[in-house]
């Protein structure tokens, strides 16, 4: 059992936003109540039909996707998905996304009274955000957004970010604004070209790159933030496919570990990880391995 921002988790494994959908389909294959938590797919104010296909391409040890944030929009989400999620016996994290501050504020207001555990502000979806500097790389916008969000939110707020040059500054801004934690990492951008057709395989061109291939990058990023923010809550993810992966993430500084592509590759993977971790935690203490990075196990 793990406590994060005052919320109890059965185990540190949660489903990352997106790859698990909104739970209903996945629930046909695994018992979601065994999970530490479930992050819903990012919901936006309006419905989004997403990008044209192909949206998925396999690459070495990973996948590139350009789903394009397909989602039903907040209204239908509240009507069709939220009740199912609220009925789960696990912690639900609601991921919200938008183009501007008012979008996030509106979404928080709409979802504030749900029984979900946390909000996760997805500032880093690689498939949207054309106009001006994307929110997720602008520290002033982040500070401003988080401050406002915290004013009205009844739940702890997590900020989801990608791998950025000045990531420490972005996280600092989130923390200053009152964020309760950060979620790292959103998919780096990836490209795969069909050399016969002389164009990218994804209709959209570039997409979000996920899976085991990005694990070393995710770990380096989480560790980098943990080194500077000793007490910050971090939800870590990026290529987690096994309990050993999950342990690596905790040792690098993640309080909770998200499974994204893993659940797409095989819906049983999160359950297998939880079962294996269960055995591991009989021998080794979660708190001990969580402090590895904090204690600075290397230069």
């Amino acid at each position, binding site marked *: 059992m793990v406590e994060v921002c005052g919320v109890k988790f059965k185990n540190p494994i949660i489903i990352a936003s*997106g*790859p*698990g*959908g909104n739970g209903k*389909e*996945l629930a*046909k*294959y695994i018992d979601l109540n065994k999970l530490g938590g479930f992050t819903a*797919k990012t919901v936006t104010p309006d419905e989004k*039909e*997403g990008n*044209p*296909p*192909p*949206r*998925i*391409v*396999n690459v070495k*040890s*990973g*996948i590139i*996707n350009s*789903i394009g944030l*397909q989602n039903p929009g907040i209204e239908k989400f509240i009507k069709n998905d939220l009740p199912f999620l609220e009925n789960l016996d696990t912690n639900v994290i609601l991921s919200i996304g938008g183009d501007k501050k008012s979008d996030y504020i509106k979404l928080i207001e709409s979802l504030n009274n749900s029984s979900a555990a946390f909000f996760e502000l997805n500032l880093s979806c690689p498939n949207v955000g054309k106009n001006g500097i994307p929110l997720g790389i602008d520290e002033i916008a982040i500070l401003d957004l988080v401050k406002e969000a915290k004013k009205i939110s009844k739940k702890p707020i997590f900020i989801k970010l990608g791998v950025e040059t000045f990531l420490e500054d972005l996280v600092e801004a989130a923390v200053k604004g009152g964020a309760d934690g950060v979620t790292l990492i959103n998919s780096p951008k990836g490209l795969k070209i069909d050399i016969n057709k002389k164009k990218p*395989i994804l209709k959209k061109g570039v997409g979000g790159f996920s*899976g*085991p291939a990005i694990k070393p990058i995710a770990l380096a990023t989480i560790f980098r933030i943990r080194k500077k923010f000793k007490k910050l809550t971090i939800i870590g993810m990026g290529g987690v*496919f096994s309990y050993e992966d999950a342990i690596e993430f905790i040792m690098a500084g993640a309080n909770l570990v998200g499974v994204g*592509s893993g*659940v*797409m*590759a*095989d*819906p*049983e993977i999160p359950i297998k990880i939880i079962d294996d971790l269960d055995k591991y935690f009989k021998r080794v203490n979660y708190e001990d391995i969580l402090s590895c990075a904090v204690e600075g196990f290397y230069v």
Partner: protein
Amino acid sequence: MKAVVKNIETTKNYILLTVETEKELKIEPGQFVMLKLKHYDFGKPFSVTYQEGKIIKFLIAVVGEMTKEMLKLKTNEEIAIRGAYGIPFIEKIDQNKKYVLLGGDCGSAPLIHFSEKYPHLVKEKIYGFATSEIKKILNVEGLHIDKESNMNLLEKANTINISSDDAFLICGSMDMIKTVKNYFKNNKIYASLEARMACGIGICKGCPIKTTEGIKMICKDGPIFDLSEVELEW
């Protein structure tokens, strides 16, 4: 779930793969499974062309990275299998109709499965392949070789006496599907569609198709669709 290669017959461009699964999977014609090779992290979708108990057969066209690797599979090698996924043909089609099955290349796989289980719903079947190469590993009634008869799948379909009451059950390339749709405007056509997939179960939103009722997922809401309800261009 684990599956063990029981037999593999190959030509340059085709594989007839027989595997035995650990436990019996419930598979209806039209459903597919995700096959994953050892050392791969993600699987890819393949229709089942034959099942009896734990024995499953696949008819596979060698088109790219993973299918090239599959050419090298050896007896007793292990692969991972999960499924079956997708809606069985029988649950979507109008069971009061008789069907002309048109399979383009390995799109024939689920149709072969269907015709074995539901012969009474089949009016005619044409499994079209460009060359006779496929005959080295596949021997089923309905096999049509373009090169041998000097006509393609569609021309062959035209030789059949088709009434407006007859329906089509088709699977093949998008080009083929569009052509059939254009040609048999007055017939009901169900097509089993394909898309690059990741989860196969509707969670990732990776395999969209535009329908009259909005975006649907081919893996979960298909793979079979009534062509009148889908938009093939996007």
